[in-house]
């Protein structure tokens, strides 16, 4: 009988194992093998990784490996990065660079797990608002004085600067601006809005039974916060000071957009990609989105007639700075990483990467000459002058969470703008102080 009990106990334990390791095993599957990038991994990455290690071995027999992690799922982005790496590997034979795709949703998790398990890449190309958190974790190399960033947009440099030290190099810059469907605007007899009041009026004029006047991603996470802060900052409020007249006005404005029926509540479930799809499908007349959507929009909806303009202002023009930074992981192959970065951040290579990516260079001189005035990217370069970074703050994820909760409460009607602002302020004060 005892034996039976034991067997039962073990079966039950085995069952529990499945439950508890549910999350863990998923992570393990996609954990990239550090030194054998082609061995196992997401199918998307396998192709490039294989191609890259080929070129790596071709160029050098005993070259030191340098690994890069990135999260671009866009095939064009992956191929461009691959091309840069192949050129680099072909140009010298001391280092062999390989890149590894880690899905965006897993990227933070993989970096954290990698940090505690000592399995990090040599270079990470990461989302700029997270940079400070990882610097705080102590995994990035101090790059002060190693790269000349004096000509870069201030916001991009700030996003990788902590306590006056430079811990990264901006990869590219982007920001949000307002896209509008020109045909719908002409048909409705509206003009391009420049203020909040005009925006609301125009959105009302554009809204029909099947078309929403305006949309922007309002998901309750960093992506949503990214899309909400331009409204907040336009009033003069800061990310850390919301419970005041300005912060409440921003929340009330969003509440009004929903109340007036010019923006769908569904925005809280739409990613920026979903918003773009609704826009090109003609379900949305205006949207706030970034320049990285342009290549897709041009190929998927070549006949759609749209333009880009600054996000309408309340007290001042404001947008939010996005983009990735390069960071070098300390205690690894730092020399190799620096050598590659010096190559990749040279003016010529930056220009090549930015043009292929549909990104705006973080380097002002390159950015200003990058696009012709009639290019759809051009308004984004202008908007960049008003774009501010989120953070940099090690506790930014917490602040971002409080902000995204606040506008979600307002959109869903579960709290008034006043209460939402007060609640967010309490959380933020607990983090910032």
């Amino acid at each position, binding site marked *: 009988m005892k034996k039976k009990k034991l067997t039962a106990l073990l079966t039950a334990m085995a069952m*529990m194992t499945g439950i508890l390791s549910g999350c863990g095993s998923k992570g393990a599957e996609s954990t990239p093998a550090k030194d054998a990038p082609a061995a196992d991994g997401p199918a998307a990455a396998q192709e490039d990784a294989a191609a890259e290690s080929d070129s790596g071995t071709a160029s050098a027999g005993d070259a030191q490996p340098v690994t890069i992690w990135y999260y671009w799922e866009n095939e064009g982005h992956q191929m461009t990065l691959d091309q840069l790496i192949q050129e680099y590997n072909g140009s010298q034979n001391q280092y062999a660079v390989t890149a590894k795709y880690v899905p965006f949703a897993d990227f933070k998790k993989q970096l954290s797990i990698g940090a505690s398990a000592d399995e990090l890449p040599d270079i990470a190309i990461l989302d700029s608002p997270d940079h400070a958190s990882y610097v705080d974790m102590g995994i990035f190399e101090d790059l002060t004085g190693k790269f000349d960033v004096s000509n870069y947009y201030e916001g991009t440099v700030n996003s990788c600067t902590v306590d006056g030290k430079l811990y990264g190099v901006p990869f590219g810059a982007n920001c949000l601006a307002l896209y509008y469907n020109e045909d719908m605007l002409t048909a409705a007899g509206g003009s391009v809005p420049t203020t909040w009041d005009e925006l609301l009026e125009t959105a009302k004029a554009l809204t029909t039974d099947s078309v929403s006047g305006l949309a922007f991603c309002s998901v*309750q996470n960093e992506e949503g916060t990214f899309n909400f802060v331009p409204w907040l900052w336009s009033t003069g409020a800061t990310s850390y000071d919301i419970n005041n007249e300005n912060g409440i006005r921003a929340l009330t404005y969003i509440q009004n957009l929903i109340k007036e029926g010019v923006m*769908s*509540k569904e925005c809280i479930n739409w990613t920026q990609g979903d918003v773009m799809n609704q826009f090109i499908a003609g379900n949305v007349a205006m949207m706030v989105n970034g320049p990285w959507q342009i290549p897709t929009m041009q190929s998927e909806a070549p006949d759609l007639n749209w333009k880009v303009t600054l996000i309408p202002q309340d007290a001042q023009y404001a947008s939010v700075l996005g983009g990735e930074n390069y960071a070098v992981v300390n205690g690894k192959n730092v020399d190799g990483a620096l050598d590659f970065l010096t190559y990749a951040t040279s003016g010529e290579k930056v220009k090549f990467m930015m043009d292929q990516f549909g990104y705006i260079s973080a380097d002002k001189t390159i950015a200003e000459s990058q696009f012709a005035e009639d290019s759809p990217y051009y308004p984004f370069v202008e908007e960049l002058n008003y774009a501010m970074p989120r953070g940099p703050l090690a506790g930014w994820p917490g602040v971002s969470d409080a902000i995204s909760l606040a506008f979600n409460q307002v959109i869903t009607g579960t709290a008034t703008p006043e209460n939402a602002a007060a609640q967010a302020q309490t959380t933020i004060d607990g983090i910032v102080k």
Partner: protein
Amino acid sequence: MAKIKKFFRYENVGMLFVLPAFLYMLAFVGYPIIHNIILSFQDVNAGNLVKGTRNFVLFDNYLELFGDSVFTTSLWNTLRFTVSCLVFQFIAGFALALFFSKRFSLARPVRGILLVPWMIPITVTALMFKLLFATDIGIINFLLRSLHLIDKNIEWLTTPGTAMFALICANVWIGIPFNMILISTGLTTIPKELYESASIDGAGKVQTFRRITLPLLKPTIESVLILGFIYTFKVYDLVYVMTSGGPVNATHMLSTYSYKLSFEMFKYSKGSAAANVLLVILLFVGVFYIKATTEGENE
């Protein structure tokens, strides 16, 4: 010599066979659990994850958690989600199992087809239900409107109350086949003779069901409910894809909130404390399951 011989008696040899599995579990289950428990008593966050300066804070993480309204909501959500799902999927699964135990043409193939929801990857199911419940383009609103049951589209996934309902619907749809197939198997173990003699003695349908089917199915029902509880309580992917815990944290479960704390907000210790609450509840149910199954074997 005799001692060694005595040691290799039948029962003990059995233990040796269990040993590899036991060691495996110790390393790959025991260690993570213990590590997680220790982690939950420390203060580990983005700042000291790598530096290794980990202070023990005893129950601070747990106290903080139970004072956190999102956590208490997610605990309550997990419970009501689990109980609602269990009730509906068990009743529907039981009814279908009884129905398909009748011999009629197509019974077997149709029962097979009904298993499909159980086999589809949960992410796919979640995306499907997300589209079904969409406000403007969802087919559910379309049907309700066409039947003139509603005049305005219901905002299923963007209103706290209805989002939970949508999640329960999706999970019940997945869970019905699981309940059905286990109960069907249980039904086949009941000897036909019992029903025959019952009908000779003049027992009615309801009486047969209450006096024969239910009592003889008791062990099966217990297993189905407890396994169902465990499978449902640890729900993660369905919620993550359909609502990500939203709107306004209204559908966070223990699992999704624990993930959010650890990997989105870098509060590793608080996240592991939340996971441990999940563990304690499941352990409790697990012990209950062991008791139920071993009692069944003793009879």
